[in-house]
């Protein structure tokens, strides 16, 4: 019985830590994996290339829980800090990543644009796009 309890606890722990979401790119993209730091650089537009592939980062709308989760887990920045960051970038002539109003449009964008990179719930992912990071 004690053994079963341990197994149960371990499986609960694993399910809590397994990512519900994934960062995805176009199938043709040569990138197979990416680090959290690279992701942060790409979505803050500090960097524009990975392995000499020009990347186009795609966000979902600011009020979607998925966006909030991405900002918390990957960018690790509060909304206020992000606002101040993008205000400063406006002065430098840099605008935030493109935004799509739904996860389906993100998927479609990534599927059709070679350098596109977005994030989606795992249940929307199929063979038409490539997963490079889970969170």
């Amino acid at each position: 019985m004690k053994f079963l309890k341990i197994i149960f606890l371990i499986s609960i722990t694993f399910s809590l830590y397994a990512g519900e979401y994934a960062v995805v790119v176009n199938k043709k993209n040569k990138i197979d994996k990416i680090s959290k730091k690279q992701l942060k650089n790409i979505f803050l537009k500090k960097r524009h290339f990975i392995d000499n592939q020009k990347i186009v980062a795609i966000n979902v709308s600011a009020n979607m829980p998925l966006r909030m989760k991405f900002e918390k887990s990957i960018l690790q920045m509060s909304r206020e800090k992000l606002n101040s960051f993008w205000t400063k970038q406006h002065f430098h002539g840099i605008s935030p990543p493109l935004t799509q109003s739904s996860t389906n449009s993100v998927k479609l964008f990534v599927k059709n644009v070679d350098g596109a990179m977005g994030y989606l719930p795992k249940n929307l992912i199929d063979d038409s796009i490539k997963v490079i990071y889970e969170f």
Partner: protein
Amino acid sequence: MRLIFFFTFLTTILLQAYEIGRGYKLHDALHLGGYFSTDYSNTKEKSLFRLDDVALLAYGNLNNELSYLIEMEAAPFYTYEYKTEKETKDTYFHKERLYLDYKYSESINLRIGKQITPIGYWNLEPINVLRETSSNPILSSEMFPKFLSGIDIYGYIPSFDSISYHMFGQKNKDLDEEYINIKNKHFFGLSIENESNFDFLYGGSIGEFISEDNKRSRYLSFNLKHDVGLLNTQAEAVISNIHDNNTNKSDYKIATYIQPIYRINSQNSIVARYEYFKDNALNIKRNLGLLGYSYRPVYSVSFKGEYQIHSNSNLNKFIISFSVLF
């Protein structure tokens, strides 16, 4: 009736495309914005009101690799001196920045035109609304030309993934000579920065320029920024060897500052700054400390107040300012 319909339509379109602090995004190739700042300062000698900067910005992506930025600024737009009741206006819009950016790869990118000189931190965010103090440190105006009218090659150094560089040069007049702190026709430099940690950045620069009065300056600078929790600290130091080609004499200049900012919350901050400046050739030595307060109802709108204490008490100064990036 048609006119009313047209203006209603236009306003609706513009409002939809507008976000405060981010400008109008009319198209990926055209973002419009700008900023202004006003301040009131008081010293023993004078009380001054200024509408200091009035600037308009346009930028965008022309294609996947090519982008541009244009900034036109009038400063000081309007000043009023209370004791003498003297009023001045300068409504001519100067070319503050005008450049093309070509993004070729992670390690090699190109910027051509008039641009902010990529040295340190302060110089890169020089406008009132982006700072936490109304005033600038002496370092920002005395040690190197704020703008470069030339070429900057920049990117990340291959094999040193987190180290970025800027290698820049100018061998001509500034694109708008009336609008630069140090007029020159010769300016070359290299800046590097370690970005391995988002919370702790540090770097340095070396370079050389020859000013209009035929003095050659060779500078070395260091800068660091630490931003963790509620405390942000930024420090820069520049030392410069100056050779006067007319008299064949050499001397040196030093400027440094350290500025901690304590964020009470997302809208309110307390700021302090200590500065040291020495120009050996002119026998000028200054120490300055300031304490200030910053309030931002939203990030792109800033109200600030500060009091400066100088080693020469005649220079002690009180400043309040209001600035907006739109």
